[in-house]
């Protein structure tokens, strides 16, 4: 039962990743404001990264230190990129 739940979680996560990837492409077509589309694209990166770290890498079941280490990477790098592009 638990294993099936885990498989369903992987499928849901994959669908999310596909939808978010396509959404990030459309951002540039529909949003003219650079600040908004850069911020939106990088927020999408953070959400997608969290899905990969927690669901695909199964770090949601790992010791907190390792999960936070990987999650901090996928938050910090887009944040630094956003600062470089927008400030």
């Amino acid at each position, binding site marked *: 039962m638990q294993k099936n739940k885990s498989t369903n979680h992987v499928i849901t996560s994959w669908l999310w990743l596909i939808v978010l990837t396509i959404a*990030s492409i459309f951002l540039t077509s529909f949003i003219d404001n650079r600040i908004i589309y850069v911020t939106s*694209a990088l927020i999408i990166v953070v959400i997608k*990264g969290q899905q*990969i*770290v927690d669901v*695909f890498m199964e770090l949601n*079941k790992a010791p907190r230190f390792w999960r936070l280490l990987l999650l901090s*990477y996928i938050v910090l790098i887009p944040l630094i*990129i956003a600062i470089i592009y927008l400030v």
Partner: protein
Amino acid sequence: MNTSSIAIASSSSKITDEELSDKKLPGDLAMWFFILAELTVFAIFFIGFAVSEQLNTDIFAQGKAQLHQTSGLINTLALITSSFFVALALSAMHKTQSKKAVYLILIAKVFASIYISVKIWEYLSLFEQGITIETNSFFTLYFLITAFHLMHVLLGMVILSFIAHSAWHDKYNNNDLSGFEAGASYWHMVDLLWIILFPLIYVI
């Protein structure tokens, strides 16, 4: 402390022990240090690319306009789907379905091959336009970063082949999947890096 409070303390410590034992790092610790080292190298590339873009905005805007955004999208979808099948393969291994896991890894490798084919096509079409690594600073970074990532995809495919071979010969048991988990984690790292690379080069 009375008997009931001792019993409650004892049961809560049992729960904590169970929770602690469930919290296990997938794969080998050595692989995670390797993954951290790879992420650090790519972090320098990402920041270097963003800083260079701010210093050469016109060159980078022209360079990005010459890239094929749809091929970037296809590559992203291919890598995400490949990673998805590797995650499913790990789920199958947890259910002791090693043969099914091998088939899922083969599907993952088909999607990885799509990524490689599209990337090579992209390079060749740029070469046909006379664009090389020496054209300007945008294309220097574009070729360096994407080729470096492509090397990681190729290494990841070798690792996937290795864990598929081991799974096919029942070299893993349900109590110790660390080798399989380590290989899968490496592959997900390759996907994670592309997730950042794709918007940086093709979108923003």
